């Protein structure tokens, strides 16, 4: 592969943000080289390409770095115009997709992360917040999909689907680690069926890490957080 049109993705297997970009590239059929970063020992390249945040994912296209998962995905959409188109054509619908993708990735993810890292009262508060936010999302999905339609194939995956997929894996590891359900089909049926549908895609299945690895990783994060909280 020459320098012309060379695509590299610096990532880490455990990061949901990397997963979005990895999926986006794979769905578009863009050939790329994946570089696994050890987040405890970041490569000089990563630090050079993302000096501000020093984080993954970083997409490097023709030697030029792009960072922030949602920004990278829009870049991918604008540069490789074949389907699937992750953002809709209509500006109003685009605005809604951008708003909700940000909401899910920042606010919802933030609250879920709090559930993982806390216990007792702090955890209860976070659980309540997540439940409220999921309800808001469910209401919005009813507008996005008024006929409850949920068929997804590799040609019509949208940005919001990628974000869901990055957060809600198929194995529901959080149930094992936390002893509670984050997604409840009884409360948010449309969201759950959307998440299930996207997790069925073979491309997505291939990118899902092994269950034990994920469980161990989440347990490790939780234990560490609780330990440092209790001081």
């Amino acid at each position, binding site marked *: 592969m020459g320098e012309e049109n060379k695509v590299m993705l610096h990532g880490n297997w455990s990061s949901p943000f990397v997963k979005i970009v990895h999926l986006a590239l794979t769905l578009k059929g863009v050939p790329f080289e994946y570089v696994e970063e050890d987040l405890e020992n970041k490569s000089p390249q990563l630090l050079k390409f993302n000096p501000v945040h020093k984080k993954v994912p970083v997409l490097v296209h023709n030697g030029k770095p792009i960072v*922030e998962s949602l*920004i990278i995905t829009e*870049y991918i959409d604008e540069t490789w115009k074949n389907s699937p188109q992750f953002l809709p054509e209509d*500006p109003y619908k685009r605005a809604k997709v951008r708003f909700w993708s940000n909401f899910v990735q920042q606010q919802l993810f933030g609250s879920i992360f709090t559930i993982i890292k806390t216990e007792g009262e702090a955890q209860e508060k976070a659980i309540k917040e997540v439940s409220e936010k999921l309800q808001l999302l469910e209401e919005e999905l009813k507008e996005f999909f008024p006929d409850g339609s949920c068929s997804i194939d590799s040609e019509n995956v949208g940005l919001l689907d990628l974000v869901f997929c990055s957060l809600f894996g198929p194995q529901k590891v959080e149930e094992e680690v936390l002893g509670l359900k984050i997604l409840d089909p009884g409360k948010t049926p449309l969201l759950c069926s959307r998440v299930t549908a996207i997790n069925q895609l073979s491309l997505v299945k291939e990118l899902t890490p092994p269950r034990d690895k994920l469980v161990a990783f989440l347990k490790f994060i939780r234990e560490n957080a609780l330990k440092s909280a209790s001081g």
Partner: protein
Amino acid sequence: MNINLDFNYKSIKPFIFICFHFGILALVFSLIVHRLSQTRKDALIGSLSLITIRLTVDARPTATLIEFSNMEEVKLIGMWLSPYSYRVIWALKLKGIAYEYIEEDLSNKSPLLLHSNPVQKKIPVLIHGGKPICESSVILEYIEEIWPQNSLLPSDPYERAIARFWIKFADDKSPSISNIYRTSGEEQEKAVKDSLEMLKTIEEHGLVGEKKFFGGDKISMVDMAFGAVAHWLGVIEDVAGLKIFEQHKFPRLNSWIQNFKEVPIIKENLPDRDKMLALLKRRREMLLASE
């Protein structure tokens, strides 16, 4: 010479007919336009320009030639003290878009706001043809797409990604600035530290290359995203009695602030400094008293 008038008259009769009726139509049209509100006149001019541009420049067959969406009513729910509100005002004014401004009392949120932004109940909210768009960065991208004149984002995908990076950075880090006046003690120290880091990052990574603005020679939505640094920070420093932005430590940022505030639309649309100072001081007293 015998001029055959009959023949000439017959051949030009349809022509006279068309001209006469076209004239009547033009008269009626101008009477209607004359009676339109200024808002609608501006919108009509905007649309006709856009249609002309689209017909002559834009070869995309999918773009509807007559896009009256940009003629629909535009409303902005904002708050005079909020830099996020101003981002949208600046964008609308730079593009010459007529809009109705609605000042929101955030201590007593209106049904319109709660209905338009049920998720966050925050301003700014843009309402276009009755449809609400929330989050200032999302609003700016929407405005750019509906009204492409006086572009506020580069056209190259890589440059756009860079612009979006800095807008997100501004979104994520700007709250530290307002925390300076909202907090005291350790919390305030952290807010000051975070704000300084933000300024340092912009200085070292955002304004490299002797650029007038973040995107080069022209103002863009990135500059607007950092409006809080240009105008609000100075006032907040006074409220808190702290000096954070030292000109000699941030020469690029200092130049940028001068350039930014000299742009006429920006200069003419900034909240009054004294008014801000008085209100923020009162707010700080109330916040600290309740602690």
